[in-house]
């Protein structure tokens, strides 16, 4: 007999998870377009949809009941609409609809951020993605004048390998989650609970270790800021004596202060990264011979 670790999931759970993954994999494989663009029979599609749905239902059976009614309701509302929007984004035939469904995904994600208490992130996501990026997408789609489905939409290259790889990844994630999960009825063995608590270390735990004496002061101060809700970040803080936050300060200012001190290099580096990507995209997208004003061709 192989000795199982303490937090190894129950065999019935494991069996259910394997069944879900296998059903989903077969269903997705059947739903993918034919490698050579041939038309698949209608029954194959129906079977594929059925199997994928069965896999989803089996996975859904692992869900715990939501903790609190209202927030749980909204969590599932936003979460499900984000997932549904994502599926429709990749399956819509019209690219314009894809872009609009993507906007739905973004809005739902913003809702999830809001539930997690990250108001600024929620607003930023809506402004940047739903506002700017989607509009750019729509302009590109309209200007590009796509007609009909592209070749890569009608056929899929090595669908078996793709399905296998992606479901293998999903399986390992499901397995990891099963190992960490506390079963529904609360009848989990004590070791499981303890190991879970040992595994996930909130920042406050680190802060306890760091305390006053240990570690470098800057990391201590960064940790202290990161456990504070955005609304309580104080832009006027004095790093040497971190006082209690004054709730009258507008919190975005506090967020900005944290970003441009604790994470200054990170912010600057993101700027460099985006700029480099922009320059590179233009360099690569140019035609073979870049058009330059030469002496031979008189330019305006």
């Amino acid at each position: 007999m192989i000795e199982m670790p303490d937090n190894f999931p129950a065999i019935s759970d494991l069996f259910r998870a394997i069944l879900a993954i296998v059903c989903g994999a077969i269903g997705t494989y059947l739903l993918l377009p034919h490698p050579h663009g041939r038309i698949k029979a209608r029954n194959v599609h129906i079977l594929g949809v059925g199997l994928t749905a069965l896999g989803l239902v089996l996975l859904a059976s692992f869900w715990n009941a939501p903790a609190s009614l209202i927030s749980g309701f909204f969590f599932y509302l936003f979460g499900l609409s984000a997932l549904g929007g994502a599926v429709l984004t990749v399956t819509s035939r019209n690219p314009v609809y894809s872009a609009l469904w993507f906007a739905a995904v973004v809005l739902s994600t913003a809702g999830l951020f809001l539930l997690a208490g990250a108001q600024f992130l929620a607003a930023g996501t809506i402004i940047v993605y739903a506002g700017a990026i989607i509009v750019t997408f729509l302009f590109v789609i309209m200007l590009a004048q796509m007609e009909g489905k592209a070749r890569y939409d009608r056929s899929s290259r090595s669908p078996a390998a793709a399905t296998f790889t992606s479901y293998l990844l999903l399986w390992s994630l499901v397995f990891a989650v099963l190992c960490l999960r506390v079963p529904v009825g609360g009848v989990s063995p004590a070791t499981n609970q303890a190991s879970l608590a040992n595994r996930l270390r909130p920042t406050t735990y680190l802060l306890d270790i760091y305390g006053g004496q240990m570690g470098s002061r800057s990391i201590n101060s960064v940790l202290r800021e990161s456990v504070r809700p955005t609304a309580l970040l104080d832009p006027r803080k004095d790093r040497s004596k971190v006082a209690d936050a004054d709730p009258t300060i507008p919190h975005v200012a506090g967020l900005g202060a944290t970003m441009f001190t604790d994470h200054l290099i990170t912010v600057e580096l993101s700027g460099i990264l985006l700029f480099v990507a922009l320059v590179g995209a233009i360099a690569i997208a140019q035609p073979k011979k870049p058009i330059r004003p030469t002496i031979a061709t008189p330019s305006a």
Partner: protein
Amino acid sequence: MSPTLIPNMPSPHELLALLPAMILAVWGLVVLIVDFGVLRRSSSDRRQNFLGILTLFGVLVAMACSVVPILHRASPDQFPGVLNVNSSEPDLLVFFGTIASDSLTEWVNFILLGLLALTVGLSLSYHFTDQWGEYFALILWASVGMMLLAASEELLTLFLTLETMTICLYLATAIEKDRKRSAEGGLKYFVYGSVSSAMFLFGLSLVYGLTGSTRLEAIQVALSGSGTVLTGLEGNVAAAAAVLLVLVGFGFKIAAVPFHQWAPDAYEGAPAPVTAWVATGSKIASFVALIKVLVYGLGTWSSEPGTVTGPGWIGIVAVISAVTMTYGNFAALAQKNFKRMLAYSSIAHAGYMLVGVLAASVSTHPNEAAGTVLFYLVVYSFTNVGAFAVAAWIVRDRGTDEIADLNGLGHTYPGMAVCIVLLMLSLIGMPPLGGFFAKIAMFAEAMNNESSRGQVVLTWLVAIGLFNSVVSAFYYVRVLKAMFLRDVPEGVQPLGQPGRAISIPIVLGTLVALGTGIYPSILQSNMQGAAVHMLHPGKLETKTTSSSALQLVVPAQVALTPKS
């Protein structure tokens, strides 16, 4: 807004630590502006020469800035007024623990800038694109990514610098638009790279969830906080997933075996100078970051206390290392294309270096072991830049890069041929050359372990490594055979004069191989001194009292005369 709203301005010391990177970042813009401004009507050749020399000038300025702190550290009395940072001060983490500023980053910056200067010089050797402004700017910005990647002490910074580096390299790989191979190589590099980056980011986010911080020091404290130093991954599936995903990311960047598929195509497709930079610069930076994250940050997960074969990343890395060196060498045996052969050989070298990484993790002399990895990286990089200069020579005059194109080189250019012989012998690891001493020092450190922990595994790995070195001799010698035993083929245009752009990297690579072979101890001791900061970043003393903790962080408040 009143100035009180800005709590901490970066101190001059912090800015000085970033000076070489900042110079390169700004210089990339200057090159771009000059290309589209002053030179917009010039011919492509003129722009290549002018921008290349302009870029070289910026690199040399940054190099001068990076050499000052090294010299200062070596002899503090020599620079009383310029850089009055007392060398007895403990080394520092700057910018709230995100970037290291210690002798390791100074050395890595210096080495990277030296290699960058050779790469930029090599770019002047032949004409492979018309977009010179973008090309040189991308190469410069890739170097910014590499320098900061090696210096980063925080996962988010690490990821962003890694992306800056690789995005520039994807684009530079695809910049030769006249050849389809270039676009193919660039696309393969990009597709593999973006998938592995996504996995890497997922792994980093799991690490953050499991530890509560993105700072490497805090991660280390969180994992070993309860006193147990080694826990391994027994039963800890979330941590195992995190480690595996992080290994996917690093494995891609260093081209270790399950994630190596991009390397031969990207190396073959990219213009030779870009290949040189992908093979050397990105490897140095990735290895430094790999050692920092795995050996320092996630060291607690390396293995269980008694053994290394149990659950833990040491077992995984040992398997990857063995497979990487064996596969790389045997695949290289079958190659006829010079650049593909070098690509597989660089995969094999990554395998050797992983042995050193393991040694740094299990050995009782971790600093010495990590130092030999750095030493190996330096020797490997300079010899490889020389080897890719040979590839540039072939492609310039023949348009191909087959080993057979070197036929008869020993008769036409005996001086250059002897240099190439020395480069190849150093890559094999023949005794009087740097490659030998680097390899032998690394394997010796792997064996020099006073505790019995992991000794069996490391002995096996060293044995596989030595066997592989013998195998590697076969394909490197094919180059020598082509040069000396074959005649110049009839009716084919022979290789022309190498010119300065090609001969300087070859000769300099040879000199480094010879110099580190004759006096290995100078570089080795410096690298081992620098490696201390790779395994214990940001501190020299143990964190015991608050006063010493203050010294670690508060930058040396000394009069810094701004360099102009």
